[in-house]
């Protein structure tokens, strides 16, 4: 057999492994489901702040509930479809509860904002699930969110723009970006054969 045909066989082999892995990701909705749940929950938690200027507690609670919901859904899907587990998202929800219910965690949340739960929780779950995209998303969006938790973006906006709704609006944009990423991930997962 020539090296050219052997190399072709090798590529077939690699594409088969990739196809199998993509099929598993689709069956589990491993990336899209967490992003959609977290994005929607964060948006729901942030939305009331736009008008009332209420604190971040509701968003923190919603993100924690989203982690718990993802864990339950993954467990249900694993039992029904026979693949995967939600391990990691259960830990993330416990982490969220820890941050909300302990004094140390609560103080950290007051300063850093609800995206501390989003970023750290999603990163823990992503490492557990070995999902590189979720890990990158956790670092990027969680990092921007925590930066804004210290008003890092708002304070750099022109003073004329300063308004009560700016801070939650930035959070809302991050939540909507997460939903959009979830939709794109869903469509990409659908391409798997």
């Amino acid at each position: 057999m020539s090296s050219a045909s052997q190399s072709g066989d090798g590529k077939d082999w690699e594409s088969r492994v990739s196809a199998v892995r993509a099929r598993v990701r689709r069956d589990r909705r491993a990336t899209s489901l967490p992003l959609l749940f977290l994005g929607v929950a964060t948006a729901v938690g942030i939305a009331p702040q736009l008008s009332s200027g209420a604190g971040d507690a509701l968003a923190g609670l919603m993100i924690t509930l989203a982690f718990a919901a993802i864990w339950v859904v993954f467990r249900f899907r694993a039992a029904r479809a026979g693949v995967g587990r939600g391990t990691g998202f259960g830990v993330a929800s416990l982490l969220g509860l820890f941050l909300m219910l302990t004094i140390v965690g609560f103080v950290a949340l007051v300063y850093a904002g609800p995206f501390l739960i989003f970023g750290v929780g999603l990163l823990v779950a992503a490492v557990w699930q070995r999902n590189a995209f979720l890990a990158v998303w956790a670092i990027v969006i969680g990092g921007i969110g925590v930066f804004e938790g210290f008003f890092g973006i708002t304070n750099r906006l022109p003073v004329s723009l300063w308004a009560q709704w700016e801070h939650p609006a930035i959070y809302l944009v991050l939540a909507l970006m997460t939903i959009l990423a979830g939709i794109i991930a869903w469509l990409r997962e659908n391409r798997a054969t």
Partner: protein
Amino acid sequence: MTEQENDRLAADLPAGRLALSFDEVVHQRNRLGILAVLAEAGEADFTYLRKVLELTDGNLGRHLEILAEAGLITLSKGYYRRRPRTWAKITGAGRRALDAELANMRALMLRLEAERPRDQDTRPDPVQG
């Protein structure tokens, strides 16, 4: 050994030696498929693996036994709605073996790609016409 170190060592080997460095347990097509599924999902049940890999019960069972004996996966029994289920879970050794296999395969492909121009220059074998 890291994947990069593995790649570098593999790149230094001649193609023939490189092919010999494959792990027989992992290299088999269906067992590689099982490990690929489990590496992605962490764990999967017998029915799911059979459906995704399009294997018969006996064939899949035999491959799972071989992988379990090699310590690359663990098997456990459970029930769902009173139906017995067998779950396969990848171990750390299984993940490392799969990573090494993928690295070896990539290195071999690179080597074969590098050798391709020489193959194309040679004339067709006169016996084969």
